[in-house]
């Protein structure tokens, strides 16, 4: 399905691993358009080229009729590993929000990695900041009791109702999950298939 979507122009996939190879080992760019991953080679610490790529890809050209664009970022922590400053990453997300959410009425989904006792301060900064600004947080973690064959972890769904300034608390729902080869099953806590 995804391949078909890609052909229709509905899905635009920026494959970071592939693009960085083209950038670093490929011949000189003839088209004059800078690569989205420009920050890798030049040591420039801003992600402007990446943002421009996102903006041009999602802004509807005349004939397109796609509605409600979605930007999926997998994974933001890697950008930090590649030399982008945390502020640059947050700026990038902010700019994307302005374009995708406010202007184009779309959604953004961002993946970040985090550890409970992480010593990666830059990463924690980005994660905390994103949590503050998000409308919905899907917090996936392993079970506190350790490894289990039937329940691989739990997911906390936090709806940031408090952002709407109506003096309501955030809604938190917790589910547990088990991952199979091609899909994931979710169930309420303590009600895994192994138990029932």
């Amino acid at each position, binding site marked *: 399905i995804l391949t078909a979507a890609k052909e229709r122009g509905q899905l635009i996939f920026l494959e*970071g*691993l*592939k693009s*960085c*190879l083209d950038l*670093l*080992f490929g011949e000189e760019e003839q088209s004059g358009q800078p690569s989205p991953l420009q920050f*890798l080679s*030049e*040591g420039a610490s801003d992600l402007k080229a990446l943002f421009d790529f996102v903006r041009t890809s999602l802004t509807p050209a005349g004939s397109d009729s796609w509605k409600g664009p979605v930007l999926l970022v997998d*994974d933001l*922590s*890697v950008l*930090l*590993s*590649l*030399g982008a400053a945390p502020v640059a990453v947050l700026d990038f997300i902010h700019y994307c929000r302005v374009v995708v959410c406010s202007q184009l009425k779309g959604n953004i989904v961002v993946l970040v*990695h985090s*550890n409970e006792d*992480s*010593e*990666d*301060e*830059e*990463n924690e900064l980005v994660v905390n900041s994103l949590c503050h600004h998000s409308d919905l947080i899907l917090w996936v973690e392993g079970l506190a009791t350790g*490894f289990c*064959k039937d329940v*691989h972890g739990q997911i906390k769904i936090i709806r940031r109702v408090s952002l709407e300034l109506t003096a309501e608390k955030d809604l938190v729902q917790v589910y547990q999950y088990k*991952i*199979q*080869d*091609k*899909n*994931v099953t979710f169930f309420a806590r303590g009600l895994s298939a192994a138990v029932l």
Partner: protein
Amino acid sequence: MSEICCFKGHDLKFYWTINWVVILLGIFLLALTLLLFIFPKNKENQRCVVKIQVGDLSNKKEKIPTVLVFTEEDKYGLYSNLLFKYFLAEGVVCGHELFVASAKEHPDNILKELPAPLLDDTYRNELGEEATAVKSEDFQDSMKIAWRYQNLPKTEASPTSTKFGHYYDVSKTMPPELFQSRNWHSFYLPEELSLHPLPLHLPCKLTPARRAYTRLLQSIQRIIYQEGFDGSDPQKKQKNILRIGIQSLGSMLWGDDICSSDTPEDIHSLTKFLYVLRALLRKSLSACIITVPAHLIQNKAIMERVTNLSDMVVGLESFIGSERETNPLYKDYHGLVHVHQIPRLNSLICDVSDTKDLAFRLKRKLFTIEVRETVLFHYLEPKRWTYFLLHHQMMVNVAWHCFGVWDFTLK
């Protein structure tokens, strides 16, 4: 007033009969529970074979996922060096091409020290010898509480008939004819830096680490392109795998100061290198093992990032010089194996084994990794778990050298 129960003659007989019935019933139930325990145990006595296969890759039509394996070195680098050599030795025996990169030893010397493969029947004898030697030590003390296990049939220590990979004798080195006939490439940093100047289009302000890593990446990319591992040469009929081994990456010999300073000059050089390397691996038929002196890296954030960027991360903790050396629980072992990450390629889930406790030991000829089983009675006699290991030994013996070559069928 105390009561005294007196039994009359015939009543006594009746009660004795009841007692006998109760005792017999008890023995019967005990025997039943023992049987229930013993038979499932027999099933578990089968060798647990890890699902890694090294097959004839040239015939396979399926896409072979490529894996970046990251090994955290133990304190003195002894055992990680051994695993590194196993990985390369398996490549030689399977006919893969090798690319060996090091800043410490010349790759020629590394290849001269690869362990010798045990071929066909000789390996069964070798393994049998090792196993019996170990067993005789432990049977000196008889078992007190877990007495029922003493009478269980001993399982053979040799692996099952499904062969996965090869076995090696670490006391002998590989005969030179074996690897000289193979195509292999080397990258020895001091040589490379002196021979080839830097290309001009790179920015001048490069730290020594960036220079070294860039040079290494260019070398790998050149080999992949020239030898056709990325499928760029359609005329190449025999598809082969490139096994890349990089020794002690991130150490000071590579020009990196992440092992010597809290605030390194370029904190991103290692992670950028790994990212681009992974891109190269994904694009070609290759697998890579990297050993890193993780215990020397001051900034732990780097290790976290590196873990996220690798497919598989394994840490070796040797007992040399630590308090665990004298711990009777570990008396037969030389260290622990910590698996931090397992690859999840082409599917959502990885092949997670039930056991997380792995210990390794270097015997006279073999390097084995064994599983610690939790046993019903282990809290009563903690030292008994070593006995169970003889039965439930997961001989992942040199299965690590099969890194990166997984058997996958895409549906």
